């Protein structure tokens, strides 16, 4: 069987829980710990690794070697940074709202850690196997907004407040295209359950055929990204996810060249580290949900399950780093317009494209729909995108510019 | 003690009353909107509790009506806050007692 790693892990967990059969209370505790603790620790380790990865990747893009002093290839750099952050003085502004200043990092970290519980890491490997996991994921993801506002408002600093308000406006705006592009997948899979969405991306008839080649490709070709609506939806989702996770080029809330560090201005030491960690874990969680929705989740050839999920999630994170190394920050007036006037109509149109694709698949069969759908669906979305960008084109300034301060 | 329907109903009634008291006592316009939301939520709790302990939960009437209420509440909140902005622009205050003029 392909998913042997997942099954081994589940067996291991069951064995560990079985050890405490005589003590029911302890058993429940052990069960809870096994469901949460490895996940939290693994993601914290992934956070450390990803900071290293990001610094190295960005450095190479900018023709620098990156951190290379602590440990081999600088791999222990996150550890050193963590110790440094722990030992730093925790400065709280005198006029700040002390309670909310303290609560903000906690409020940001808790939803981030809850959100990773909704990710289907493998076949049956899920901390919170809820029926409506995807919906809960988005619900919990929207709590980030509150935490960012809390941080910005409680600091009693105008830059913090501006950063916080920017973050709130941005996150609220981009949540709509995010959810709407996810709706296509939910609609086609007919479920809000993460496991079922993953299962819908495997071609069952090919997997059961016994043919090795068909089994190999049955784990890949069913991914929603290979369909026209899935491809477009993935692009919309990914762009909106970048904005949700405050990643570049949508890192306006922390735009250091404009508003110092946004809502993080008044944070130092360990609280800052927690903010940092929560942001990275949110980025991981949102790329994990993108993997689940569009990239086949844990399905993949040969080593299906946890390994494929890790590979996919890190590749998406690498793309985020790549984008950060490439694109400059958006202007704040372009940001809102992009979400409301470009992404939102396209995401809504994409739902219709997905619906047509679904019905034509039932009508004309798989291959015809695949080819025709790519041509027609892509043409529709492309035309719409071009038309929208023409409509949204900001008016060009004609004639001579007038500068007030310069002559 | 087992939790019964009455526990939920009492809680809901208490929450509704708190909302009502707030709406009648405070003069800040946003606080009044908050109180409206509290009252609506208390009603939602009632609906869900009745569904949960009710005779025919398969029909899912409770969640359905709660969904409608939430949609209406969201509309109300959005519209109410837009009106707050409009009032503030006009009267330069959020104190409802000072919003007295019909003209201008």
């Amino acid at each position, binding site marked *: 069987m392909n998913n042997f790693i997942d099954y081994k892990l589940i067996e291991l967990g069951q064995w560990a829980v079985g050890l405490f059969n005589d003590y029911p209370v302890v058993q429940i505790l052990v069960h809870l710990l096994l469901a949460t603790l490895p996940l939290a620790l693994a993601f914290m380790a992934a956070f450390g690794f990803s900071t290293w990865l990001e610094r190295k*990747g960005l450095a*190479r*893009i*900018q*023709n*620098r*070697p990156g951190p*290379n002093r602590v440990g081999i290839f600088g791999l222990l750099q996150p550890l050193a940074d963590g110790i440094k952050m722990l030992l730093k003085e925790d400065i709280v502004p005198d006029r700040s709202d002390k309670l909310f200043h303290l609560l903000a990092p906690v409020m940001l970290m808790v939803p981030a850690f809850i959100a990773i519980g909704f990710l289907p890491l493998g076949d049956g490997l899920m901390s919170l196997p809820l029926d409506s996991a995807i919906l809960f994921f988005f619900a919990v993801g929207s709590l980030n907004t509150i935490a960012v506002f809390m941080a910005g408002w409680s600091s009693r600093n105008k830059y913090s407040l501006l950063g916080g308000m920017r973050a709130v406006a941005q996150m609220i705006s981009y949540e709509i295209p995010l959810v709407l592009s996810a709706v296509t997948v939910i609609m086609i899979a007919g479920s809000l359950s993460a496991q079922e969405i993953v299962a819908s991306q495997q071609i069952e008839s090919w997997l059961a055929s016994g043919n090795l080649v068909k089994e190999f490709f049955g784990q890949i070709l069913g991914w929603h990204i290979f369909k026209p609506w899935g491809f*477009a939806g993935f*692009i919309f989702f990914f762009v909106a996810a970048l904005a949700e996770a405050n990643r570049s080029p949508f890192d306006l809330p922390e735009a250091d060249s404009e508003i110092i560090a946004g809502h993080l201005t008044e944070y130092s030491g360990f609280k800052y580290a927690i903010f940092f960690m929560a942001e990275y874990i949110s980025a991981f969680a949102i790329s994990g949900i993108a993997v689940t929705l569009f990239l086949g989740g844990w399905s993949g050839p040969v080593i299906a399950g946890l390994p494929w999920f890790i590979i996919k999630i890190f590749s998406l994170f690498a793309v985020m780093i*790549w*984008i950060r*190394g*490439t*694109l400059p920050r958006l202007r704040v007036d372009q940001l809102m317009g992009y979400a409301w006037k*470009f992404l939102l109509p396209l995401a809504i149109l994409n739902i219709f494209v997905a619906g047509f694709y679904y019905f034509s698949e039932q009508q004309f069969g798989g291959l015809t729909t695949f080819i025709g759908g790519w041509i027609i669906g*892509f043409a529709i*979305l*492309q035309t719409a*995108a*071009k038309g929208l*960008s023409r409509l949204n084109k900001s008016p060009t300034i004609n004639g001579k510019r007038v500068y007030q301060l310069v002559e | 003690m087992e939790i019964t329907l009455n526990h939920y109903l009492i809680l809901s009634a208490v929450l509704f009353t708190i909302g009502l008291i707030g709406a009648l006592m405070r003069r800040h316009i946003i606080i009044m909107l908050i109180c409206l939301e509290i009252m609506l939520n208390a009603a939602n709790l009632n609906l869900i509790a009745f569904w949960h302990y009710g005779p025919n939960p398969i029909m899912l009437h409770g969640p359905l009506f709660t969904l409608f209420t939430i949609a209406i509440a969201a509309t109300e909140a959005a519209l109410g806050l837009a009106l707050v902005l409009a009032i503030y622009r006009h009267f330069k205050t959020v104190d409802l007692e000072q919003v007295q003029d019909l003209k201008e």
Partner: protein
Amino acid sequence: MSLIAKGILQGMAITAKNFIQSYYKKERLPTVQYPEEKSTVNQFTRNIPFLVYDGEDAIDGMRCTACKLCEKACPPQCIYIIKDTDENGKPIKRPEVFDIDSSVCMSCQLCVEVCPFESIRMDSEFELSNENRFEGLLINRDELLKSNEYYHEIHPIEAQDTDDRIAAKIAEAEAKKKAREEKARLAAEAKKADAVMKNAKVAAVTEALAAKAPAAEQIQESEAKTGVIKPEAAALGTTEKSATKAPPPEPVSKDDQASTPQTKESKAPGEDSEPKIF
């Protein structure tokens, strides 16, 4: 903007190229891991002044004459010079103290510009950091003195140029000297002939010679003042020469050693003129 943004993809291709090429192309990763490997210094790098000496011995071969022109020229006034004295308190043309405050020096090269003896030059040394804030950053005379070979090593073109210039000065000076001596000889011969012709006394000839010797010295001194050439440096233009000439005899006192430039200066014409006179 269409669904697939071409510009974004182009940009991402460029960054990807940067990323991948940084692993095998040197120009894509120009960073030098400083403490382990040091960057090669360009020969036109100028950082902090140093004093050039010729030959083996730093003190003997020192070109500096403590004329203090550089001290006056230094805009941030980072040079501090005390003229050396001999046992009797008579000043010698050599610095006893020559300090440069590296924390103040702004690498302007004005000291190099004004130096008439090609003595002060710019070093390409950049590791000037020190644990001691005050004394550590003050570079004294012995640390500043570096050989002409070192100068050739760091700034080959400039050092060669300097050497050529010095050689040219020597040649010019020698030519002038020769011309002068020729003139003197001719004059002497003419006088001799006069004397012979007029049957003058031997005492008169010696008187005339005695009058001429200080005159020659005077000319030389005036040349040094105009900054054209320092006879000592000129004499030691090539290192081989200086190596053979420089070491003074053992018993000579320190004071004597210190005053070598002066003695040589006075000696050089003396040596040449002596056989002529007698």
